[in-house]
């Protein structure tokens, strides 16, 4: 349709990915006034005017939608809809138009009052600095005495509001540090700025030749640029645990001893209570099945790729998704002891561990500020002893504070990180905090989850032995009535079948398959032993085959396989070429993990790992001195994502997985992982270079300041020059080598390994 919308080839594949249930949409939406709801969706593919038009038109056509607006910079659309109407099928509609969309929760990025404060402070400082510089240039070029005096007084007038309004950000931070008995970068900045202003004011009133108003405001301006960028990059509050709590159902339908049904809050349900779980719902509490049977999708809980059938007497864990059938459970554990709650505690425990990492900038600052204080104090005392001139000694001490002030240092790190984040975004990777970039650069081993990470977590028909086209249609029509992943895969081979072929008396048999009557014949589709025996090709294992029978006679089968994430082979070979080890840690059955690892050539793998085992494995690697990048998506990966040195999750991950990860990749290709690593390494090299540049700059200017040769002109030149140098250096991070859209296509068409495993 347009330059950017992927074609029909894409939409079929996209159709397989699960659409989040309405309940989840409701949870991440925000309630507005006047009965409106606002939902944010992330659309990584949007990139041009045609995309804006299509996306907004598609959404606005939906019933109940009030307005939709796409933010192209953030690749995000915010949809406002009427809370009285049912949840509009926003994601499905966008998918039909060719755009993959993911839910975006508000907690991830609430509007930020601190950023607004910084930008306003920056604007005031910029205004003052530029106007004062205008006046200063005339003074430097030789204004006569009365003009100079007037200009200095005007400059003082301009600098004062900047000093108060823009400077308070530094004073507050310095004061907090001092009160806690520490010192930080803001202490020398605050002292230098305040003293320089006071001295300049004193000198201007007495009509002395030099005033440092320009240096004061310019310093504030440059430092605020760095501060603002740093704030943009700074660690956003982690809402991982909050996200997990929201995934847990809030309540459940209980059946009392007298048969009365009531929807009760989870916290009020005690062990021994009886709970109903309908098809399509998540199991709210750990318990045991006392009636009914169903297939449960545990992929998000354990990482197991094939759904498990459960029936009377079997135990189920909270968080599993009931695909079909209805279950009656006897609750075994209260909400706070259930699997999800345990996962939450595990994450809280490991999340505190990563806070120990200190960012390069912080380490540099801790080293820098005592040195600056000492040098300034020595300069003051030295000159006082040598010349006995208070005024001159003070001027030199202030000059030392101002000129060595970490203008470039304040910009060196955030500038590189902002450019790197921009480059990552071009590759479809969004970075949640600047510190993660530094940690990512240190990585020497990557641990991948299997289901949903290396695979797309969805089955697909690799080949079928169903000769007759009509039979094929029948199979797809039968399958279209079921939620089971295997049925979904069969149904997607003939998307039109559901509408074209009517099915009578459809029934679903959990753990076995489906059956129904079509044009007078009885058809069954499902597990091999249930439908009837069939001679399989040697390569096919029983569990990955769905057999079709007509009137009790098998007539063909579909072979299924989990789709390997596009770009996996390329990504793994790139990682190996960069001398980074690869390991697979999965909760899936060992046989499945082993076969998959073999096919991808991953030598080191772990199967049947519980969430705790994954964390333990990461701890073991960390003890060996390895820096692990964890890539995973499921609920069972969440503690591991939080525990790893640094972590990454695909956009299709469970809400909680996305929240726990440091980086989220938006495109389907796994090549985002090595690309992010390359950018992070490059960024760290540039950060170190920039810090070195800042030190070299100081080595040059410090003697000049100490010797008392610093005039306002020299200070202005030195400060601007060093800042420009650092900013220019930051831009040397290479851009996106190839358009993500192009990778998208190749990933999709390439046959064999890339697609199936």
């Amino acid at each position: 349709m347009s330059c950017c919308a992927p074609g029909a080839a894409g939409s079929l594949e996209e159709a397989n990915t699960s659409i989040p249930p309405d309940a989840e949409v409701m949870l991440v939406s925000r309630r507005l006034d006047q009965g409106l709801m606002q939902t944010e969706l992330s659309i990584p593919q949007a990139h041009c005017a045609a995309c804006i038009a299509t996306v907004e038109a598609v959404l606005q056509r939906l019933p109940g939608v009030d307005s939709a607006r796409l933010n192209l910079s953030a690749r995000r659309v915010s949809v406002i809809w009427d809370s009285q109407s049912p949840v509009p099928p926003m994601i499905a509609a966008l998918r039909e138009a060719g755009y993959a969309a993911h839910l975006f929760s508000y907690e991830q990025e609430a509007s930020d009052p601190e950023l607004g404060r910084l930008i306003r402070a920056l604007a005031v400082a910029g205004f003052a600095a530029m106007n004062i510089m205008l006046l200063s240039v005339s003074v430097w070029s030789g204004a006569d005495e009365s003009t100079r005096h007037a200009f200095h007084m005007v400059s003082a007038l301009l600098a004062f509001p900047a000093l108060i309004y823009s400077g308070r950000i530094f004073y507050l931070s310095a004061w907090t540090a001092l009160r806690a008995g520490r010192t930080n970068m803001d202490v020398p900045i605050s002292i230098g700025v305040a003293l320089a202003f006071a001295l300049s004011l004193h000198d201007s009133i007495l009509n002395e030749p030099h005033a440092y108003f320009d240096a004061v405001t310019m310093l504030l301006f440059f430092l605020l640029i760095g501060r603002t960028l740093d704030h943009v990059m700074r660690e956003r509050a982690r809402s991982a645990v909050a996200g997990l709590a929201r995934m847990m159902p809030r309540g459940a339908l209980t059946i009392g001893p007298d048969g009365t049904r009531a929807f009760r809050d989870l916290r009020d349900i005690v062990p021994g209570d009886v709970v109903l779980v309908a098809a399509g719902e998540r199991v709210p509490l750990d318990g045991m099945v006392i009636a009914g049977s169903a297939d449960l999708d545990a992929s998000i809980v354990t990482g197991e790729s094939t759904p498990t059938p459960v029936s009377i007497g079997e135990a189920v864990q909270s968080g599993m998704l009931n695909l079909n059938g209805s279950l009656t459970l006897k609750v075994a554990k209260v909400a706070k002891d259930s699997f999800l709650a345990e996962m939450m505690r595990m994450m809280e425990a490991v999340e505190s561990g990563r806070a120990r990492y200190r960012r390069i900038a912080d380490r540099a600052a801790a080293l820098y500020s005592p040195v600056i204080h000492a040098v300034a104090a020595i300069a003051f005392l030295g000159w006082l002893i040598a010349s006995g001139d208070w005024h001159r000694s003070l001027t030199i001490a202030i000059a030392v504070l101002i000129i060595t002030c970490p203008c470039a240092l304040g910009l060196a790190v955030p500038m590189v990180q902002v450019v790197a984040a921009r480059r990552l975004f071009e590759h479809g990777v969004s970075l949640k905090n600047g510190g993660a970039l530094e940690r990512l650069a240190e990585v020497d081993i990557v641990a991948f989850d299997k289901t949903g990470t290396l695979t797309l977590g969805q089955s697909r028909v690799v080949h079928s032995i169903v000769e007759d086209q009509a039979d094929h249609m029948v199979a797809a029509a039968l399958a279209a009535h079921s939620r089971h992943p295997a049925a979904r895969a069969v149904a997607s081979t003939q998307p039109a079948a559901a509408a074209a072929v009517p099915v009578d008396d459809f029934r679903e048999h959990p753990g076995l398959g489906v059956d129904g009557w079509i044009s007078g014949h009885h058809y069954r589709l499902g597990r091999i032993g249930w439908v009837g025996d069939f001679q399989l090709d040697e390569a096919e294992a029983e569990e990955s085959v769905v057999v079709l029978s007509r009137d009790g006679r098998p007539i063909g089968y579909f072979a299924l396989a989990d789709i390997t994430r596009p770009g996996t082979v390329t990504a793994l070979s790139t990682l190996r070429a960069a001398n980074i080890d690869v390991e697979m840690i999965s909760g899936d059955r060992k046989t499945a993990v082993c076969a998959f690892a073999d096919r991808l050539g991953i030598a080191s793998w772990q199967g049947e790992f519980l969430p705790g085992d994954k964390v333990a494995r990461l701890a073991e690697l960390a003890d060996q001195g390895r820096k692990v990048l964890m890539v995973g998506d499921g609920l069972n990966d969440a503690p591991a994502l939080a525990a790893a040195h640094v972590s990454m999750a695909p956009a299709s991950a469970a809400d909680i997985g996305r929240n726990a990860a440091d980086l989220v990749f938006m495109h389907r290709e796994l090549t985002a992982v090595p690309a992010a690593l390359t950018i992070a390494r490059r960024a760290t090299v540039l950060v170190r270079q920039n810090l070195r540049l800042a030190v070299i700059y100081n080595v040059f200017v410090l003697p000049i300041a100490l010797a008392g040769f610093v005039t306002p002109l020299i200070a202005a030149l030195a400060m601007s020059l060093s800042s420009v140098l650092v900013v220019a250096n930051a831009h040397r991070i290479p851009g996106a080598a190839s358009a993500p859209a192009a990778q998208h296509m190749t990933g999709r068409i390439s046959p064999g390994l890339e697609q199936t495993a």
Partner: protein
Amino acid sequence: MSYLSWAVPVALLMGLAGLGAFMWSLRSGQYDDLDGAAERVLLDDNNDDSIAADRAVPRTKQRACK
């Protein structure tokens, strides 16, 4: 010197006007989507309603995550 006594205040006032304009544009969300603004010129239907709708959304200061 005499001309400076009005030229300098005029220059400063103009600067202040610029600062005020920037603050206003910042507050009214004009920097929220720079890429989008560049592309939207190309769209035929000049529908500014959605901007108004956008602004009707109260920018609450609540942060769910502490």
